[in-house]
């Protein structure tokens, strides 16, 4: 999480807020999908449990973003090397 949190610290507040909102919304979407998949309803979960589910998904998404950034950087560097050589 180090790279991503460092990147977020340097970014302007509006960008940080938008990033958080986007991640939160995606996490909620994933939680909804999970609940649908297991044929449950919202009432089957307490607020704390739901919070835990969304928070876990958020963590997973942040990891995915981190991996995505690293992959993009590596691909860009690879193309640069191929183009240069």
């Amino acid at each position, binding site marked *: 999480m180090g790279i991503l949190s460092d990147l977020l610290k340097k970014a302007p507040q509006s960008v940080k807020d938008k990033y958080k909102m986007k991640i939160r919304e995606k996490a909620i979407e994933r939680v909804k999908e999970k609940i649908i998949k297991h044929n449950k*309803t919202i009432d089957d979960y307490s607020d704390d449990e739901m919070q835990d589910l969304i928070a876990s998904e958020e963590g997973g998404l942040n990891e995915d973003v981190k991996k995505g950034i690293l992959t993009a950087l590596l691909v860009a560097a690879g193309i640069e090397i191929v183009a240069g050589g």
Partner: protein
Amino acid sequence: MIKKLNSFIGFILASKLMMWAVPDSKRFIKGIVITAAVILLTMYFHSEYLGWAEISGKIGFVSTSYILKNIIILVSLIFLYFYIRKPTKKIYPKVEGEEKIYTKNNNEDYFDKFRNKDKLKTKAEQILEKDDKD
């Protein structure tokens, strides 16, 4: 060739990033593109008209054409201003079969309390917080 491909990929990634970071950018870009097209077309047709007027010698409406051209440009810019400023209603993305998870007590608004929270805590963090309070 590879450099061109690289810059093309870079352009696509940058536009994707922009769309992702600023969801309203789609609307912004659409407005800008349409306005630019209208202005460019107006300028093109006006220059065509000027060329035709010069060749044919019919210069009676030249001054009117300038006024019309500038009015069209001004109106399109005003439209763009209001188009960009108009707030869009926040619509959250729907998941297929989402309605099944809602009950009489809870509907779509249920998730708003989690949307509005600054930081969500996992089960472990909640337990740790409880332990700290004890």
